[in-house]
């Protein structure tokens, strides 16, 4: 390993020219200057630089010395600034020779070209730019252009394919006087589709104004975002941060062409991979330095989409063109889970195999001793045969190995000829009650009072518990002895523990998912008290600004503010409890109250979906003993399922009924809907994990509901109503019947 590391270090050193290391004379002596007109913190600028570096650092002829200048001309275009910059660079590079220059964008070229002619006459310049920005521009002979283009018009075509009703495009970018040329170019591109798309101009607005306009775009519009570097109010932005400030408010999907903006609110687009442009620039420099002809490749765009935005605007991934890349998938647990299930199944199979082997062993009792020995040797785990008195008469190799190592159960490795029962008695001290149970099990089988038995016990080993399973099987006729098989089941138990933990995690995810579904109604619940607080506070301010304020009225305002603040606080507490999913102490819970709180949570969601919820409460207050938050989760899941089920029904017939009742000491909560009912022939199937009829569902909601209901000593049933629709009934033992 060490040798390998030294070799690796040597290779790294060899790959760098000494020029890359400070204080060592340059080897290749070649120098390349990269000139950006922009500020280095723009993501695309960093991408271009990264692409250039990636190629030139791996140059087989040795890495040239790289110098990078960021002129920040877009934000500081004043002649005073550019003049001072030029003077400064002239001083800085006065004694530095330069073999090639990479000028990024027209601004960079315009700045460096005269200076380069002065400092390094005849130096080749590679010029990276968008071809559309340099139309009708004469490019000097020593400049090699590497031209990309932003596929703006093609992105509009893409948007129209994805949104068939689209007739308008809202163009969002920064203040045009700062980015005049770019804005004009993009506008021309947008207008190239003016036969099919009407342009809504949202350029150069102050951010606050843009935020107001973007919420109410017409249904037949989409947004094309270029990049706000300075808004209409003169505020500076990083374009993707600007995007993040208005994208969540947008009522329509936003398309763009800059990869750095992905994940900040773009639904997608034909993104220009500027790193690829940088690499192409690097390759051009490489070829020029090597004296080879330069050939430039064409498109640097890729089709990329944001899964979250696609979902938000209901754009099906099936509509995306071939070759599209979809990012930001919500991570699912299921990619990892099957392995664990497989682990648990494997452990079960091993156990079954052992039992089968045991039976085989019994059948072969009459066969030759040699055959028995061979069989024993082939068995996994440790096997011993005991005579009627508990003495070990035969063992397999594993058992002997353990005996030699002195490991396993204290009784586990008892050598041939010794008393197995006595070994168990001796181990009482080290393994406690398990030893008593083990002793009793072996005795019972030997005396014929049990035919077989199993015991799982743990032993502390190396700071952790190892778990063993011991199977004892009688040799017939009774009194002839027994076979003892001992297996290390630590892994199986760990797998089981892990599965249990996953289950908890899944339940948590499910809760988080439910909260996500409720996000809009939670905002609604918070909006009410916050709205009242603001109105009261502003009313109080008005009252206080009068010459003789009515203090009683001010006091009333303030009291209401306090009350509303508490109301908002309760909403937050409830969400927090649900999200954490912590086990709240079990207590007597009023079921009507739990259902009411769930209905409050879903009220906004229901009205948004045009569905009504009809509650019928038991007149008494039925109580059950349990975990309030978990019960909320069950009813929440059932009601949300009901709302999903009625989504396709005609408006006016979307109804979910929730009722509570008490019969014969059991509390029933039933949730029924007017949807299509359960299509599965086996109604029980709906409670199986992964059973789902929803495109987006994991199919876990109902299986989690069932485990929660059962953990409360209750049961849950699914039914189809006589006149259609599905009904879920949960029955719990009433808390009144439980001993206090």
């Amino acid at each position, binding site marked *: 390993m060490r040798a390998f590391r030294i070799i690796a270090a040597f290779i790294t050193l060899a790959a760098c020219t000494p020029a890359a290391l400070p204080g060592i004379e340059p080897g290749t002596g070649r120098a390349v200057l990269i000139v950006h007109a922009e500020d280095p913190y723009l993501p695309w600028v960093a991408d271009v630089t990264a692409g250039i570096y990636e190629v030139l650092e791996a140059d087989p002829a040795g890495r040239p010395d790289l110098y990078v200048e960021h002129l920040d001309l877009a934000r500081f275009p004043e002649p005073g600034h550019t003049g001072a910059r030029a003077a400064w660079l002239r001083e800085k590079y006065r004694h530095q020779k330069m073999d090639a220059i990479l000028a990024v964008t027209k601004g960079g070229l315009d700045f460096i070209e005269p200076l380069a002619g002065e400092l390094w006459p005849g130096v080749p310049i590679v010029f990276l730019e968008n071809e559309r920005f340099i139309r009708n521009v004469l490019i000097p002979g020593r400049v090699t252009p590497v031209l990309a283009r932003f596929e703006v018009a093609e992105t509009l075509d893409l948007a129209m394919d994805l949104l068939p009703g689209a007739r308008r495009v809202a163009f969002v970018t920064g203040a045009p006087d700062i980015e005049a040329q770019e804005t004009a170019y993009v506008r021309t591109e947008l207008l190239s589709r003016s036969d099919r798309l009407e342009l809504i101009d949202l350029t150069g607005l102050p951010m606050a104004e843009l935020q107001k306009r973007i919420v109410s775009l017409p*249904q037949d519009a989409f947004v094309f975002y270029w990049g706000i570097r300075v808004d209409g109010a003169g505020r500076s932005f990083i374009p993707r941060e600007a995007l993040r400030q208005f994208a969540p408010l947008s009522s329509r999907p936003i398309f763009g062409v800059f990869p750095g903006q992905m994940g900040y609110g773009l639904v997608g687009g034909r993104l220009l991979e500027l790193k690829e442009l940088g690499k192409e620039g690097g390759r051009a420099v490489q070829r020029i330095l090597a004296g080879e002809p330069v050939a430039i490749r064409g498109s640097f765009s890729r089709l990329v989409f944001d899964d979250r935005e696609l979902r938000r605007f209901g754009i099906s991934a099936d509509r995306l063109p071939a070759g599209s890349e979809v990012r930001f998938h919500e991570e699912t647990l299921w990619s990892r889970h099957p392995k664990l299930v497989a682990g648990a199944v494997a452990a079960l199979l091993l156990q079954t195999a052992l039992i089968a082997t045991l039976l085989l062993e019994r059948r072969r009792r009459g066969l030759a001793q040699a055959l028995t020995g061979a069989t024993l040797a082939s068995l996994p785990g440790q096997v011993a045969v005991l005579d009627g008195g508990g003495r070990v008469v035969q063992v397999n190799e594993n058992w002997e190995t353990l005996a030699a190592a002195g490991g396993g159960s204290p009784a586990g490795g008892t050598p041939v000829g010794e008393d197995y029962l006595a070994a168990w008695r001796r181990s009482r001290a080290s393994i406690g009650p398990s030893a008593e149970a083990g002793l009793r099990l072996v005795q019972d089988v030997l005396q014929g009072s049990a035919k077989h038995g199993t015991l799982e016990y743990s032993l502390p080993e190396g700071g952790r518990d190892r778990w063993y399973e011991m199977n004892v099987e009688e040799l017939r006729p009774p009194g002839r002895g027994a076979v003892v098989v001992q297996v290390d089941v630590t892994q199986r138990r760990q797998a089981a523990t892990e599965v249990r933990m996953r289950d908890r995690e899944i339940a948590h995810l499910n809760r988080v998912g439910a909260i996500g579904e409720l996000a809009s109604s939670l905002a609604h619940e918070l909006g009410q008290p916050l709205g009242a607080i603001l*109105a009261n506070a502003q009313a109080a301010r008005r009252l206080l600004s009068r010459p003789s304020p009515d203090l009683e009225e001010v006091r009333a305002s303030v009291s209401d503010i306090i009350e509303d603040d508490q109301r908002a606080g309760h909403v937050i507490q409830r969400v927090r409890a649900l999200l954490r999913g912590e086990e709240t102490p079990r207590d007597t819970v009023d079921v009507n109250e739990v259902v009411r709180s769930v209905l409050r949570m879903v009220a906004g969601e229901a009205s948004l979906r045009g569905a009504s919820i009809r509650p019928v409460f038991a007149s008494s207050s039925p109580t059950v003993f349990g975990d309030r938050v978990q019960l909320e989760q069950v009813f929440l899941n059932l009601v949300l399922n009901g709302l999903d089920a009625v989504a396709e029904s005609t408006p006016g017939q979307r109804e979910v009924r929730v009722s509570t009742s008490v019969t014969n000491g059991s509390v029933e909560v039933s949730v029924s809907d007017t949807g299509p009912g359960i299509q599965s022939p086996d109604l029980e199937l709906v409670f199986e994990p992964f059973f789902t009829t929803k495109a987006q569902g994991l199919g876990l909601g109902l299986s989690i509901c069932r485990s929660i209901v059962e953990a409360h000593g209750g049961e849950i049933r699914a039914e189809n109503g006589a006149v259609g629709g599905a009904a879920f009934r949960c029955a719990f033992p009433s808390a009144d019947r439980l001993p206090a």
Partner: protein
Amino acid sequence: MNTVSPALAVVDDDAAFRRALERLLRGAGYSVDTFASAEDYLAREGGPRHGCLILDVYLGGKSGFDLRAELAESGIHIPVVFITAHEDVGVIARAASGVPCLRKPFDEELLFEAIAAVTGGTPPQ
């Protein structure tokens, strides 16, 4: 104190919010009637004809949209400002095109401006 026209009707099912808005609007010089539901508003007897309705979108029974449509069907065209605590004001604005819709919590100035815009008046200071 002088009241600035017009007389307003606030229809909102949230009692605390109703009380707060009434206090604010009165403080700004409006005369205000409040109603807990669209049904209450329709069942009101006599009283002044309101110059502007401030309508919560989601009410317990009929929605604010329903109320506006019903009034229009009976030939009553009262300027409306929608208010809602719901997230997606864009959706609501589309559903009721041309009608301002404010999301709770909203600033008093926005409300006054919206009332002035739909009634053709000037907002109070």
